[in-house]
């Protein structure tokens, strides 16, 4: 669910349990974010249902970032996990040159944004977003099934 919790801290994490992906904020590239999310969740030994949940949650997180992209931009996804949870921070930055094909989603309707929020609320334990110095960030946390906060 969305909460007032702050974004996960990425510093000090075990280097072996961190993965970063950088991709154009382009609708055609979103499958790469999903593939990576599923691979990371599997590597972190999350169960099948949570792997599928993370795959969809990352897709929704990226859609949210892409909807706010002013034009050509890149998304960086940082995945980090430990014994209790998996956290992801997505960062959107304007790019200096256009992406390969520049295909971006049409501006999302209010209903689509609400649906996306509803999906994230249902799939992850915590998610949120912020804009700092013009850089848009969105994050989520998923606790391991059966692990209490």
């Amino acid at each position, binding site marked *: 669910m969305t909460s007032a919790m702050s974004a996960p801290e990425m510093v000090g994490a075990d280097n072996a349990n961190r993965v970063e992906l950088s991709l154009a904020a382009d609708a*055609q590239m979103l499958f790469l974010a999903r593939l990576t999310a599923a691979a990371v969740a599997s590597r972190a030994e999350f169960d099948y249902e949570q792997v599928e949940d993370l795959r969809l949650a990352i897709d929704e997180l990226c*859609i949210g970032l892409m909807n706010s992209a002013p034009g050509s931009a890149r998304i960086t996804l940082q995945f980090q996990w430990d014994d209790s949870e998996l956290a992801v921070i997505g960062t959107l930055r304007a790019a200096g040159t256009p992406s390969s094909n520049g295909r971006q989603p049409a501006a999302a309707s209010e*209903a689509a944004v609400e649906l996306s929020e509803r999906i994230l609320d249902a799939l992850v334990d915590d998610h949120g977003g912020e804009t700092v110095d013009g850089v848009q960030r969105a994050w989520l946390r998923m606790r391991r099934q059966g692990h209490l906060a």
Partner: protein
Amino acid sequence: MMANDAAFKVTVSEQGGAPVLEARGEIDVASAPEFHASLADVIGQDPDIVIVDMSGVTFIDSTGLGVLVAAEKEMREGGHDLRLVVTQPQILRLLELTGLDKVFTVLSTTSEAVPT
């Protein structure tokens, strides 16, 4: 080049007098416009019932669900019916999580969805 099993494909056929739009692969922000266009074409022919067979859909996100929600609303407002055929457990679960299982008529086979 390797075949992409996730690639979105849509075909339209007819069963029992009702159009059946069969979607396969992943419906995401990239493929949702094609899904929307295909569905709009079918609905534009003003059928009483439209069946959307999603048995072969392996992934759908909020943009794909948004297309279905808009289509269901349009059909309902015209006094018509949109029926979904869903068999993939993860899609059924997503419909439940979002409460959309109460909005759509969800069936497990196209023969169940065909008007009698």
